[in-house]
């Protein structure tokens, strides 16, 4: 297929259609409304189901119902709307059925704003909904990656009977880039052995997240963890840039990752040996790749558009063996590459030391940079 200029949100919608999406349920919220808007036209055109629900609660529970039948189903929202969906998400996780959920993140907490942010990393990766459940979280940094990961998200969700979330920020949703779509084909329904899709001529199946006997629930939890270990062993994805001889390693996902790439290019041109590790699956997190880099790197810099959420995963991996520094722009601010370049210069000219919490020194630097009084 030839490349076309696609807007991130619309690209995700069309990629989902081409991956065989049969039902979409959603509720509008900026900056992801284009996904819903696009599908409101596209899905009926193809004779597939589109419902603008009465609320996010309605939407996620419609997803739950449709997912039980084994068809490809999706919803999308932005930060506050995703919070509203968390109960339903936990039920879907507890029922061990596949579903895809897109979060085009914005500044928070609360109503926050509609600007690009990465503030829901912890919510996506570590929980959000109640109970002990794993989930796959994919973090595209470009429109092409958003397309490819949308296609992948349905395969992974089905393969592992697991919620797969795609997290991106408003800027990737609104951005246009040349990208290639996969071909459009008819959805192929798989006759899953668990799907409740009509019990004619076969035994009745029941899907539920209720395990009243704690021992049954415990067994279910352990099965989920065993399943998760397979995901960790097989599905880690990341991209490396200039890492071969890197003394300093930046770790950043999504937009923060690509802004860091610009800084890395400029620093390299100045002769500084710096590279970038950009996690594509933030859950499962590329612990192993990062662990290997620990023997090579003199220092790490974690760059995020939040107050340091993925930072915890990096700290867990590095375990104090080398210094980890942090640079974040929370609240819906997208950093310019100059800011990350300044951080690279600071670290390269040193000295940097191992800190218990790199946020503390970052906070001091932030008050200085922004010229605001320390409260």
């Amino acid at each position: 297929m030839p490349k076309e200029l696609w807007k991130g949100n619309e690209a995700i919608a069309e990629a989902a259609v081409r991956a065989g999406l049969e039902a979409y349920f959603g509720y509008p919220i900026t900056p992801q409304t284009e996904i819903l808007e696009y599908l409101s036209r596209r899905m009926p055109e193809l004779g597939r189901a589109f419902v603008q629900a009465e609320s996010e609660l309605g939407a996620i529970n419609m997803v739950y119902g449709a997912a039980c039948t084994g068809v490809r189903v999706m919803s999308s929202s932005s930060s506050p709307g995703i919070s509203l969906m968390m109960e339903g998400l936990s039920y879907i996780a507890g029922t061990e059925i596949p579903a895809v959920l897109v979060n085009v993140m914005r500044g928070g907490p609360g109503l926050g704003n509609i600007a690009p942010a990465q503030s829901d990393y912890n919510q996506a990766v570590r929980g959000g909904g109640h109970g002990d459940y794993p989930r796959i979280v994919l973090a595209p940094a470009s429109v092409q990656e958003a397309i490819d990961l949308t296609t992948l998200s349905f395969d992974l969700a089905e393969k592992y009977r697991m919620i797969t979330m795609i997290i991106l920020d408003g800027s990737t949703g609104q951005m246009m880039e040349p990208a290639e779509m996969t071909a459009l084909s008819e959805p192929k329904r798989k006759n899953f052995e668990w799907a409740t899709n009509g019990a004619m001529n076969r035994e009745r199946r029941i899907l539920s997240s209720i395990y009243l006997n704690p021992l049954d629930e415990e067994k279910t939890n352990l099965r989920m963890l065993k399943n998760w270990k397979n995901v960790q062993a097989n599905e880690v994805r990341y991209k490396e840039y200039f890492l071969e001889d890197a003394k300093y390693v930046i770790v950043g996902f999504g937009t923060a990752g690509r802004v860091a790439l610009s800084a890395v290019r400029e620093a390299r041109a100045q002769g500084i040996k710096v590279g970038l590790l950009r996690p594509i699956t933030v859950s499962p997190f590329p612990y192993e790749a990062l662990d290997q880099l620990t023997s090579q790197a003199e220092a790490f810099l974690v760059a995020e558009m939040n107050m340091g959420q993925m930072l915890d995963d990096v700290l867990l991996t590095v375990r104090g063996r080398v210094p980890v520094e942090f640079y974040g722009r929370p609240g819906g601010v997208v950093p310019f590459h100059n800011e990350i370049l300044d951080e690279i210069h600071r670290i390269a000219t040193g000295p940097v030391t191992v800190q218990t919490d790199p946020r503390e020194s970052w906070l001091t630097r932030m008050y200085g940079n922004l010229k605001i009084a320390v409260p």
Partner: protein
Amino acid sequence: MQKEIIIAGFGGQGVLFGGQVLAYAAMDNGLDVTWIPSYGPEMRGGTANCTVVIADHEIGSPLVKNPPLAIALNLPSFDKYEETLAKGGTLVVNKSMVDHAQRRNDIHTLFVPCSEIAEEIGDRKLLNMVAVGALLTSLPEIKVEDVEKALEGHLPARHKHLLPKNFEALKRGFEHAQKEWDKIPA
């Protein structure tokens, strides 16, 4: 090679489309490109801008603090981007909507009466194409013919009858900017 372009003006001046046309032309030339609008709770008559980055490698940041190239279609944009433009950069200014001369001497400022030229052609909405044509004098990676082809290839069929006037706007903008360059001492 990497170049960043900011196009700014009032909502309704065709700021976003002007950037998209450049993005299409860059894509058709086999370059990587990003186009990103400022988005927010905007209102009619408010300011709008978009950033276009073109490169022959994987593009990192889609936003830029100090662009080498910018188009300012109104006065607030002129004041804002004259300040942030990279040293040695080129700023195309819609002369029809500004009331003062440039303040910086370390950038090239090209004053082009985009609105007036567009009205001469017969459609004031073409001011964005006049400005894009002018900018191309500083963007050798994209030629006027590339933008013409991009318009032809990507403009919705219902707008195809507007092509000749768009082509004229691009050409007039390019030619006017060339004359402005002649005035700038080497």
